[in-house]
């Protein structure tokens, strides 16, 4: 099955429903599809293998995604935050391609053979102005690869994760009800165009019949103002966004009465932030979602009822589930395995493995999935007795101290419970005696943290091996734009600093 089908059947069923943009001036489903067919006809004539987009979130992004599928090309959104040199290397890897670029970014691209560049303003003049065009007649497309997403490449050359039409449509059809959204529903998309959640949001919204509204780039002020003005009912945010959104709501008194559902993911949400969000947005259903690029987005989720049950419970087993990512989707098989491949017991940490139609587990020229379909996520985690999944972070981030595996997440959660600690990171850095030692980097509200007292509390609650042996202070911690803590950056700095000691 191919992704354009999702838009096609929605447009046939509700052509006049608004699909993209504002309530008053947005494109309806028929206009959305018709424009995509016109773009597809244009792409087909160019005859390039890939359709590449470099730019901020905008209505042309979903139109390009569907048009690319209709034309039988692979859609490749690029990360505009990369340095020019790295960006141009990726552009070169997408050749032969049609490249649509935001006008302000055109100057960053070095012209090369095989890349046909068009500025966004010109593209919009061609395809986005005026009333809905007629649908173009298109031959049936046949390529398998719907989307290529370059990984961040923190450990070498970025890899191109392959998402096939079959993976994406399977994800959408097994998680979303066709036209399940009410006509008043609208989703606000603020994750960048090159993130998997940006791709899956387009597909699930089209199939579900839900209007989407874009924030070109995230600021908490714009997010709250747009959500209020557009009657936004659904949104996905990363942890760092949510805290800032709540700050703005508190300052402006905005209550966002239309908002019904907020999902979050892409990093660990501090418990105080989610508790604050639940208190400030009592009408909102919160969903914590866990997924990877290689799994076409969400593979496990903690729903609204789970959130409420966890917060209301005196049972520590149920209570701690607020920090879990819930249960695997019904269409996903999930296992925790030891290093030797044998399955872990409940409560025992290992590597998270998944299998299912939505799991691609594949990079260009390299399959990372086993013959029986299991994909090793490289994430450490464990399941509780009730099958709730706890994700402890990347396997590479687990600290190995004297043969004992220590997860930074558990220690970080504990540190965050201190009022003076605004943010923190726990890392392992090389040490002669233990192989690695546990160190903590904290952002202190007072500027004068009592680390002896904090260390004593950690020792009492966890154990001495999990107690940070060295403490560092920072004004802020480094995050990427989707809220992921840049542990490797921080670790490299600390290793350098401690070597100089």
């Amino acid at each position, binding site marked *: 099955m191919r992704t354009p089908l999702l838009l096609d059947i929605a447009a046939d069923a509700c052509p006049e429903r608004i699909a993209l943009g504002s309530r008053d001036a947005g494109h309806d489903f028929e206009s959305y599809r018709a424009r995509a067919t016109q773009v597809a006809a244009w792409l087909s004539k160019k005859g390039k293998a890939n359709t590449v987009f470099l730019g901020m979130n905008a209505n042309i992004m979903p139109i390009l995604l569907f048009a690319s599928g209709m034309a039988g090309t692979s859609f490749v959104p690029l990360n505009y935050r990369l340095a020019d040199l790295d960006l141009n290397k990726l552009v070169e890897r997408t050749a032969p391609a049609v490249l649509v670029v935001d006008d302000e970014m055109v100057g960053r691209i070095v012209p090369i053979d095989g890349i046909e560049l068009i500025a966004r303003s010109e593209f919009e003049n061609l395809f986005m102005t005026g009333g809905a065009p007629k649908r173009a007649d298109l031959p049936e497309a046949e390529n398998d690869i719907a989307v290529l997403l370059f990984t961040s490449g923190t450990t070498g050359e970025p890899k191109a994760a392959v998402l096939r039409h079959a993976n994406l449509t399977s994800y959408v059809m097994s*998680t979303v009800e066709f036209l399940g959204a009410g006509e008043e529903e609208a989703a606000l998309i603020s994750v960048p165009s090159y993130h998997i959640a940006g791709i899956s949001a387009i597909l699930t919204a089209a199939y579900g019949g839900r209007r989407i509204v874009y924030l070109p780039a995230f600021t908490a002020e714009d997010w709250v103002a747009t959500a209020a003005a557009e009657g936004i009912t659904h949104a996905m945010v990363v942890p760092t966004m949510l805290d800032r959104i709540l700050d703005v709501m508190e300052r402006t008194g905005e209550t966002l009465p239309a908002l019904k*559902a907020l999902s979050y993911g892409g990093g660990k949400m501090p418990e105080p932030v989610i508790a604050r969000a639940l208190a400030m947005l009592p009408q909102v259903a919160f969903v914590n979602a866990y997924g990877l690029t290689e799994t076409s987005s969400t593979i496990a989720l903690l*729903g609204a009822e789970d959130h409420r049950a966890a917060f209301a419970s005196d049972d520590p087993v149920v209570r701690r589930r607020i920090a879990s990512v819930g249960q695997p989707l019904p269409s996903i098989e999930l296992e925790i395995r030891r290093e030797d491949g044998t399955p872990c017991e409940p409560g025992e940490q290992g590597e998270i493995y998944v299998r299912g139609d939505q799991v691609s587990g594949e990079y260009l020229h390299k399959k990372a999935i086993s013959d029986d379909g299991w994909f090793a996520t490289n994430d450490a985690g464990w399941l509780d007795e009730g099958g709730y999944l706890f994700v402890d972070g990347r396997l590479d981030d687990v600290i190995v101290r004297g043969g004992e595996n220590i997860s930074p997440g558990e220690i970080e959660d504990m540190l965050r419970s201190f009022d003076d600690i605004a943010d923190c990171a726990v890392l392992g850095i090389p040490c002669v005696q233990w192989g690695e030692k546990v160190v903590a980097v904290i952002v202190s509200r007072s500027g004068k943290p009592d680390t002896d007292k904090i260390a004593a509390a950690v020792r009492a609650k966890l154990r001495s091996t999990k107690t940070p042996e060295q403490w560092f202070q920072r004004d802020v911690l480094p995050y990427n734009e989707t809220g992921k803590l840049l542990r490797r950056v921080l670790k490299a700095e600390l290793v350098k600093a401690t070597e100089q000691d």
Partner: protein
Amino acid sequence: MDLKPGSRWKSAVCDTQLVVVRPPQAAGELQCGGTAVLPIDDAATPNGTINPEFAEGVMIGKRYVDETSGLEVLGAKAGNGSLSFNGVAMAIKGAKPLPASD
């Protein structure tokens, strides 16, 4: 009748439109209102009558399955006929929708 995943069909006797989600393991005939369905781009407009044994209707957004063959289809447009595969009524698939996560 090649019921491949993603293929689109329409009823010959009512307004129902369908998308194949999972193909059947063995070839057979997908019927709506008791009559074989037609490819979506077939020029014929619905006529003829709905067999009263297959008149419970197809709902938009619902999935219908034939357990023997594994065939699964999605109701893409509603209609008054109901579905069968080789004359055996298909069952509605009860799946609880998941909350939106992206």
